[in-house]
């Protein structure tokens, strides 16, 4: 699907710095909260907020985390320039091109060697002005033996706002490090979104990705790619997405198993309730032994469309790759099972949908989980 980039304003929307997040206006705070960002910063190791074309807030509360806006980060740390456009190339497509030509900042997060953070790092990329186009470039570096959870929320201030978001992200998970990256999208029906992400994981490293998108979006296309470079490294992906009427999402994950004893699991639960989802997945195994499993569960409601396109690419004897995909309406056996326990069809459907969208496995902070449960209840209103 084509995006007419000329419709959006990629210059002229520099935002004010915010000293105290609690003084943001109510609408902003509310939309940030729905994207997983807690303005009170309770139990957070660091916070970063970008509004429109520059960063509004950036602070670390843990000596184990260095967090800087992109421009400043590259000025302070000479070597970090090498991490920019290393895993992705500007010439990839018109979006990377545009982001390379006029970057509006973004964040660099470095979790220092051996630091094991107990509280998550949070970031929010917000689009505030109508018709704004936002390009950000984020770099995440988790050094040897470090452990961190990053909550990365993306949102518009208003649900009916027109906007475009291009987000470049490059992930570096070093030896024996572990990164959980949770991305929450809280877009609106007039927002066009093109994230471009790539990452690499070194020996013994773990990359866990969670993705939740329950709100409408005009169109969103992304296909982040993670390369397991080091022996014994692991990548796991869990996504939960809902696509309501007039929402088009072309999403998936690509993993390249490029060392021995690497493992990956890509699991997505997608509901097309009147919307259109293309659920992709690609596992390429270049070394053996290596193991990969791709799973896409799709539920169709209200004439929604799901196209599941799994791809397995084994290039070495001894690799074990599998996939499992099921797309259809709510199973009649499941509905009837709940109906014989006294639930009418709507109550039963709702219980099944809630189970289907269950995010317990993601290990999110409780307040965020509550927020997501609320969003699920909200999105159910348009389903039944």
């Amino acid at each position, binding site marked *: 699907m084509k995006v007419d980039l000329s419709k959006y304003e990629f210059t002229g929307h520099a935002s004010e710095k915010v000293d105290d997040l609690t003084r943001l206006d109510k609408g902003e705070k509310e939309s940030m909260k729905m994207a997983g960002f807690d303005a009170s910063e309770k139990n957070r190791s660091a916070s970063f907020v970008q509004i429109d074309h520059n960063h509004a807030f950036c602070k670390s509360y843990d000596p184990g985390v260095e967090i800087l806006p992109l421009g400043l980060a590259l000025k302070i740390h000479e070597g970090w320039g090498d991490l920019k456009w290393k895993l992705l190339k500007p010439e990839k497509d018109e979006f990377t091109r545009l982001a390379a030509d006029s970057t509006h900042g973004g964040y660099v997060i470095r979790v220092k060697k051996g630091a094991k953070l107990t509280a998550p790092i949070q970031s929010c990329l917000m689009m505030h002005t109508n018709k704004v186009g936002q390009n950000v470039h984020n770099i995440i570096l988790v050094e040897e033996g470090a452990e961190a959870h990053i909550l990365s929320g993306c949102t518009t201030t208003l649900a009916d706002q027109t906007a475009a978001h291009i987000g470049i992200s490059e992930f570096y998970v070093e030896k024996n490090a572990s990164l959980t990256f949770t991305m929450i999208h809280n877009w609106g029906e007039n927002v066009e979104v093109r994230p471009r992400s790539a990452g690499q994981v070194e020996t013994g490293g773990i990359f866990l990705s969670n993705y939740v998108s329950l709100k409408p979006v005009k169109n969103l296309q992304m296909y982040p790619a993670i390369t397991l470079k080091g022996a014994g490294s692991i990548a796991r992906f869990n996504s939960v997405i809902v696509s309501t009427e007039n929402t088009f999402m072309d999403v998936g994950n690509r993993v390249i198993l490029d060392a021995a004893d690497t493992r990956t699991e890509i699991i997505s*639960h997608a509901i097309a309730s009147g919307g259109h989802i293309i659920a992709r997945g690609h596992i390429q195994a270049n070394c053996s032994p290596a193991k990969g499993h791709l799973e896409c*569960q799709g539920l169709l409601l209200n004439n929604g469309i799901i196209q599941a396109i799994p791809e397995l690419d084994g290039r070495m004897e001894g690799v074990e790759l599998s996939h499992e995909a099921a797309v259809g309406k709510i*199973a*009649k*056996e*499941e509905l*009837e*099972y*709940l*109906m*014989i*326990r*006294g*639930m*009418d*069809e709507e*109550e*039963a459907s709702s*219980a*099944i949908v*809630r*189970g*289907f*969208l*269950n995010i*317990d496995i993601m290990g999110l902070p409780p307040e965020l989980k509550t927020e997501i449960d609320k969003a699920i209840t909200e999105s159910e209103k348009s389903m039944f």
Partner: protein
Amino acid sequence: MLTIENLYVSINGTPLLEGINLSIGDGETVILFGPNGSGKTTLLYTIMGIGGYEVTEGRILFNDEDITHIPAYERSRKGIGMSMQRPPSIHGLKTRGLVEMCAGKRTVDVEALAKKVNLESFLDRDINLGFSGGEIKRSEILQLMAQRPKLLLFDEPESGVDVENMALVGNMARELLEGPSEPDAQHTLHDLMHERKTSGLIITHTGHILDYITADRGHVLYSGHLCCADNPKRILDHLKKYGYKECIRCLS
């Protein structure tokens, strides 16, 4: 409690049940025997209102009310409960949540009920996902304990249950049918004797359940026809000796 009159059931035009007449009184428990594929589960599903079976003739009355064509959840709310032979698993739906839903508007002590069937550690698992045969039976009983039906439909309580758990399943089935067996703070022996009992329709191949519950009558379902009405233990003895071949002679 339950009256089935001249019931004909088919699926996709294939007749499965032909002219079933069956009546179960208040507090009565009836045992249903029959070879594989004879239509036992079909009968239970049709009473419950699930499975897409078509009633082509006859009707089902529950407490004198015609329920032949009302949806399953209404039958459930009127007091019919069923333990399924092979219930589906549901992703993300926790056993605890389902047990709570079974109780409807009442609040139940889920932990205490789960303890009775040794399923405390299953409450936070997805319902039926990876449950063993015996665990499924106990989970079905747990749901029914929360639901408290007046008519209990039980499809093969013994299948997949080991000897030790059979006693548990059997005793819990009795409790569902007859209420708590020992007098306690809330129930005097006098109350227990006079409390209106739940009715039951239980499918069994082995008859092990008869060691735990008192059944009033037994029937044999043979190739879609109901035959025999006798003491269930006597039917079982005959089946052990002669198999189902005598049913053919009896029906012809």
